[in-house]
């Protein structure tokens, strides 16, 4: 079982978590053309490389972010969502 380190609960088996997929760019729905909107809905980040994605620690319902390599499955780091806002 892979380990995922929850920023709040520490390292846990990954079956305690639920993946919510890669973080997506925020779009203003009204200022977005139809084609870009459908692209936003259906195209997900899937490049070979590192993605930033949302995870939920199910027992504590804590949501956080992880940087993970989609090829090696290595988790580079995990962090609280507040840091994402700081980065943005």
């Amino acid at each position: 079982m892979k380990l995922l380190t929850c920023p709040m609960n520490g390292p846990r088996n990954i079956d305690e978590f639920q993946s919510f997929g890669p973080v997506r760019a925020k779009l203003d729905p009204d200022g977005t053309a139809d084609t870009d909107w459908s692209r936003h809905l259906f195209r997900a980040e899937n490049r070979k490389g590192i993605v930033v994605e949302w995870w939920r620690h199910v027992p504590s319902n804590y949501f956080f972010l992880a940087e993970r390599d989609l090829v090696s499955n290595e988790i580079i780091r995990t962090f609280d969502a507040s840091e994402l806002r700081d980065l943005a």
Partner: protein
Amino acid sequence: MNRLPAPFGSRIDRSRPVHFTFEGKPFEGYEGDSIASALAGSGQWVLSRSFKYHRPRGILSMTGADANALVQLPSEPNAAAERTPIVEGLRVSAQNVNGSLERDRDAIMDRFGRFLPVGFYYRTFMGPRRDSWLKFWEPIIRRKAGLGVIDTKAPHRHFDKTHLHCDVLVVGAGPAGLGAAIAAAEAGAGVVLCDENPEIGGALSYGRYDPGILSGLASRLEALPNLNVLTGTVCNGWYEDNWLPLIQGNRLYRTRAREVILATGAIEQPAVFHNNDLPGIMLGGAAQRLIRHYGVRPGQGAVVLAANDDGYRTALDLLDAGVSVIELADPRSGDEAGPLHAELRGKGVAIRKGATVEAAEGTPGNRHLASVRIGGSWIACDLLTVSIGNAPAWQLPCQAGGKVGYEAGTQMMTITLPKGSVHLAGAVAGTDELEDAIASGQRAATAALSRLGHAVAVEPLVTPKSVRPRYVQPIVADPKGRDFVDFDEDLQVKDLQNATKDGYREIELVKRFTTVGMGPSQGRHSALATARIVAEATGRSVGEIGITTARPPVGPETLGVLAGHHEVLERRTALHTRHIALKAEMKPVGSWWRPYFYGDASGAEEAVREEILAVREGVGLLDVSTLGKLEIRGPDAGEFLDRLYTMAHANQPVGRVRYCLMLNEMGSVVDDGVAYRLAQDQFYVTATTGAVARVYADMLFWNAEWRLKVDVLNLTGAFSGLNVTGPKARQVLETLDSDIDFSHDAFPYLSGRDGTVAGVPVRVMRIGFTGELSYELHCPSSLALSLWDAVMAAGRPHGLRPYGLEASRILRLEKGHILIGQDTDAITTPDELGFGWAVSKKKPFFVGKRSIEMRARLGQTRKLVGLQFPAGARNIPGESCLVLRGGAPVGQITSVGYSPSLGRHIALAYVHVDDRAEGSRVTVKCRNGELVEVPVVAHAFFDPSNARQEI
């Protein structure tokens, strides 16, 4: 009897004889014997028939890894005879025989071998008809394929799982593993040492070593309380982040280790020559195991093929066991004669250098070895031990990211691991001598300890002794074949060569075309030889060819141990025992138990009808506790719901209840419920039973992005819900002691009240899934029984009846209320449901808004409508029956049922958007294929003006 006296036979207890049968014949062994050793002790050497040619096969390795020694137990196919202990009365039989092991009618296959070249099944069995394979050939092949027979009446066995955590896991308790485990534990680390054998020691337990070495290590081991030794425990795989399954009998230890030291040893390799598979030909280690572990003499007259010291030691062991060693053939040329050589010579054993076994011949029917050919001359013998070299046990290291290489200089298979938390020690890392193995274990421990933060003196890298090139046995391909490379799959040298000629030149293609390495031993004894044969056939180096990917498990493991024991999750509402007492027919809904109806199954239809009538004409009571219940609290609660649901909630007055419809980003309907505003900063929201887990998670997810000032609390279990519904609902509630005014004016439709009913604090909502006057009472679950009992008592004079899920479904269908997931699918929009009224046109944003606008522009193709069948209609289509237009499917029935209130069948269905108007007639295809025409009506079949729910 081929039994030897003590001290041979470390595993057996001669004072405890055990009786069992093999192929119906009685045998005796001792406690501690494996099936194979007990049979060998009684002179029964043939254990099985081979996969394809049905040749007699016997002990090869005594490690339990190959198909040769798989047997059938009454309730267990493919049991490893070399590992399975005998127990009193055990019935053992041979596998894959047509008739008996002794007289196998399919032995004729051995003569037809030339008609069955590699891959022959791809080139034939196709005709004469298109379905000849399915109807004729495959059944034959299927019967011939497979090994053991499954017992479909096998008694249930108990398996369980648990967890184990350690600083250092050492796999393999041979010299290297012992060295590693002791060093790590002496430094203070928490260590688990596991070994698949019943004792520690590995080669020290069966090889020709000073017993003092093992006892010395064992006493150091015992002094370490932080060292947990698990013998009889196989480490059967390596998974990400050092997660390893340790299997001990019927128990699976799911193990997390911070550091792992793999001291998995080496795998002795067989020699390839004509008839190299005869019973009586075994690896040197197998002979030593038989002698020392089981006190079994492996033969009477032996030839020893030895290209390393282990082979010489085996010869000496054979002599000690009273076996006459006729000759030792050493394929290595050169005159160097070590001490072992001299010792053997001293005991009168003839040693022939530069010679190898070229072929073997068997007794009639190839039941046992009769003679071997060396240097052109035949030597009679009943035992040939083979010690020509090893391959490191690559399975676990490769699963952990190790790469297999081949050093042409030393002709060794090598393994390199990336730097990290997995370390190799001993023979798997290429060590040869005992002292080197122990030291290699200690070095691995040092590396692990330093990664764990222990202050350890980093040992200077010892310059390894110059490694002697290993001798590699030439592969003696024979024109007559039967020079087996893979015993499991009956593959010979030419089979592999021929595969390359057909273009299957990559090792993985060779494997797939020939099935080499795909049998029970998973290439343990064939991978190296295969790589060499393919390399030679394709003009490449062994390194370029490589071996096929090592995948878990390391060795066969039962589905039972993997499955373990599992209780099925069940959830009960607080009113569970009341339903049971009322003789409810309970049905699972997700993990919940819910009353389907009340009464005997025989009277189901009648009971449901009565329950419906009670609600329509009197009053009914439904346990709605499985509904999702969420509390949204905080200053931004209204704003939060505005973004999540399609209706407006920020402006919803306190004390009001509003329908809520949830879309996903694609604009598809995913859930519905109601929201009751308890306070300016507090909403009580319901979600459907099946969707609440996802709705709750999605709410949290959205708020992780939005960061609004709200808290979401899932109250699904904390609160219970009772729906009191029917024209007499108000009368019932008004008789109860309460501070709530249930009158029409004080408590109108779509409002909510807090208060106390019968001493129970409640949240009451006036909503109407049934279309009748309804009060939904929610209360803390520990008080639900009190409330239920009070309502039941108050309702008794009014004929109140509890009703179940089936009645509830019909009641809602009569009102045309949709069920999410039944009347909707993954692409349903509010428009398709006719739910424009539930979608705010004013809000700037809600999830799915942008998409439903876009989808509306793109145009819709279907609409959910009501269908009403004429009273007495004969053929009523079932759920999912197709709605056709011009013969093409355009929609389907989503819900259908008989409405006792209307006296006819009604349905909800998707129809083509152009047929949506009331009065249109649509064609529905019944299950039996018949087409019926049905008129479209409005959703609300019953009481279309909704007068009843608002009284």
